[in-house]
């Protein structure tokens, strides 16, 4: 087998602090290597070090051998000539990675013209061929904001490779994507592999690793703890952490005990309908939510999951239909947990101040917060920090604490774990459900992950345009 990329002792430092321990791996032609690990394990840093893309303030050591040439990872500038030509770096958020003021075709043609030095007309022809090969020839004349997520993904993929790169580095290529688009990305990457290219994938999504095949390396706290053929490692993990990682995949969860519906309904919705952007999301949607009930909504993004939840909370108005909320329950007892924890906290004040304001506003007992924090396994010290200084998992548990503080009767959890890695996701969902059960609080849980919904919820509803 022909090795195209051989990394020896790649390590990442912030000043003197070692973030990633010296790590070595190899990538063969026509093969996939997946690096998995939880958020903060250093797996992304490893990929960034190899690509010469570490953020300011971080430095790397080690050597990368590309097709026989040695590159010193401590000198990221020396890697720049490889960008686009040898290394194709797939952007994480394709929509944001495309210039909003340039047609899709031109963005792809750039690589052919400026990196491969083709004539303008030839470059445009090549770009057209690329888009056609990916099935998005109608994206040509469009600007990024006219592209669907899947189309943007393909255009970005074509653009990343136009310079002739045959080694593709994809950092979290499926983060926050629904199933359909996820499969799209996997198909794109596999196509590259079949054509003889090599792919380095960084992810926390084990299902992705399984589908991609090839080899896998599991990273924990900056160290590779296990590596080998993906199939073999995932079916017979030797390291304890790998086992936990596999168990945390929602498909492997044990289903939670379901609850009966003896209690009184707290929210009854009748014949709701909603149109957004000219598209009918749902109509004639009926829903009855009882105390302490956990209801799941699953479906692709854009199907109206969030809109339904926001309508039930009264944050947006339905086009049609009526909602009856439990009489006597104050409006603030209908709460929401947001998808992206950092953006649901004010960035410039400490978390403690945010929560104290809430306690003062509603005249609550401070001891409730302490009890909640203990229950959610959160240290009181976290309250002194700002949202940016707390991990995503902790922050999402803090937002659960913040919602629970108000003794909600209904909680809308909108994709609360889609940005968290599997182990953190499982912990978070478990705690959320436990707390809700204890407090007789109903939950409407949305997720693009069907398995997560199926294993967690008492009842699953489909939203559909009747």
């Amino acid at each position, binding site marked *: 087998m022909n090795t195209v990329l051989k990394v020896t002792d790649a390590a990442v430092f912030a000043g003197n602090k070692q973030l990633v321990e010296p790590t070595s791996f190899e990538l063969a032609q026509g093969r996939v290597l997946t690096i998995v690990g939880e958020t903060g394990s250093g797996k992304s840093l490893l990929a960034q070090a190899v690509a010469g893309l570490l953020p300011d303030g971080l430095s790397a050591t080690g050597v990368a051998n590309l097709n026989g040439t040695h590159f010193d990872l401590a000198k990221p500038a020396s890697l720049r000539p490889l960008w686009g030509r040898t290394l194709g770096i797939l952007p994480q*958020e394709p929509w944001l990675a495309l*210039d*909003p003021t340039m047609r899709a075709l031109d963005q792809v043609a*750039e690589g052919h013209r400026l990196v491969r030095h083709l004539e303008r007309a030839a470059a445009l022809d090549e770009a057209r061929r690329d888009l056609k090969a990916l099935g998005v020839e109608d994206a040509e004349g469009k600007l990024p904001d006219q592209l669907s997520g899947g189309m943007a993904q393909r255009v970005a993929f074509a653009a990343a490779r136009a*310079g002739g790169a045959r080694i593709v580095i994809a950092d979290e290529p499926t983060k926050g994507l629904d199933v359909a688009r996820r499969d799209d990305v996997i198909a794109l990457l596999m196509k590259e592999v079949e054509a003889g290219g090599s792919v380095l994938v960084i992810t926390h999504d084990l299902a992705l690793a399984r589908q991609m095949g090839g080899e896998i390396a599991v990273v924990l706290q900056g160290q590779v703890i296990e590596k080998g053929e993906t199939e073999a490692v995932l079916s017979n993990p030797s390291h304890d952490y790998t086992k936990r990682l596999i168990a945390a995949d929602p498909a492997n969860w044990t289903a939670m005990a379901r609850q009966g519906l003896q209690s009184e309904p707290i929210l009854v919705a009748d014949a709701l309908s909603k149109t957004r952007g000219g598209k009918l999301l749902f109509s004639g949607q009926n829903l009855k939510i009882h105390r302490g009930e956990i209801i799941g909504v699953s479906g692709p993004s854009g199907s109206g999951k969030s809109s339904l939840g926001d309508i039930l909370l009264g944050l947006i108005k339905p086009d049609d239909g009526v909602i009856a909320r439990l009489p006597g329950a104050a409006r603030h007892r209908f709460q929401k947990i947001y998808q992206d924890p950092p953006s649901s906290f004010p960035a410039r004040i400490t978390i403690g101040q945010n929560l104290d304001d809430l306690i003062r506003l509603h005249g609550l007992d401070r001891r409730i917060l302490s009890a909640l924090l203990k229950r959610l396994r959160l240290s009181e010290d976290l309250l002194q920090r700002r949202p940016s200084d707390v991990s995503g998992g902790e922050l999402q548990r803090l937002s659960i604490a913040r919602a629970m503080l108000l003794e909600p009767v209904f909680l809308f959890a909108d994709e609360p774990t889609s940005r968290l890695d599997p182990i953190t996701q499982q912990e978070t969902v478990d705690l959320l459900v436990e707390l809700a059960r204890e407090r007789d609080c109903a939950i409407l849980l949305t997720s693009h992950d069907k398995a997560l919904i199926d294993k967690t919820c008492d009842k699953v509803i489909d939203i559909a345009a009747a």
Partner: protein
Amino acid sequence: MIRLLFGRLVQAALVALMVGLLTFVMTRFLPGDLAYRIAAGRYGYDIVDSAAAAKVAAELSINQPALVALGQWMFDLVRFEFGTSLISGQPVWEEVSTQLGHTLKLAAVAILLSLLIGPPLGILAGLRPGGLLDRSLILISTGMRALPQFVVGLGIIIIFSLTLGLFPVAGHDHPGHLVLPALTLALGLAAVSNRVARDAMRSVSETAFYTFGRTKGLSEWEVFRGHGLRNVAVPIITYLGVQFVYLIEGVVVVETLFAWPGIGHALVHAIFGRDVPMIQGAAFIMGLLFVALNALVDALCHLIDPRERRT
């Protein structure tokens, strides 16, 4: 595009109405005896007396009721009939249009100069935020903007005219006369536009698409030309629209300082002389000019930004 220009046309009509009303009200409320001041303007302060003032008042029907006068003025406006200057006796339109020509020449050169100074420096600073250029620029810009324009103008006269002897101080008969007043205006404009350019460049260079341009394999210059320039140009040009207010305000001061025979200069003199038709005419034209320039900015953004073209 058509809808956009139509919107500006409606705006122009509204501006005309507002400026017409306001100048009328404001000139009515100017302190002092209107007729007396006009007579003084015509015959000189030494020989003016109440008889002359009364004659002026009668001739110009200054004592007619306010509402009648307003109606008359509005009616004249609709027909683009600005009347004649109370002091020179020339038709206002004739006077204003020659002055406007001078002012436009000055303003155009000032904008051009400011665009040559401000945005390039700002873009360089934005590419290296916190660098030496960035820090020096913020100091100079803040200072430049904090100084009143007549001080900047005087400083420029002292340096370029009195000390170095490069350009004439005042006058308007050859292009060299344009340089100093235009530079005074341009520095004030550039002091702000370089900050706008700097912030725009900084935020564009931090976007994912800028990084993606690099990882696609483009050189730093290719990324800037392909993905930086167009994205930075839109806020800079949009901001020009806002800067026209500053320009119009600046023209009044700078033209007076450099004795440039433009519309700002004329406006100041008209106010001193209580030359009501001239005040109204000049203010009216400046208001419309402001709308026209903003329409031009819209059109430019339209050409640069394909997202605008589509709508």
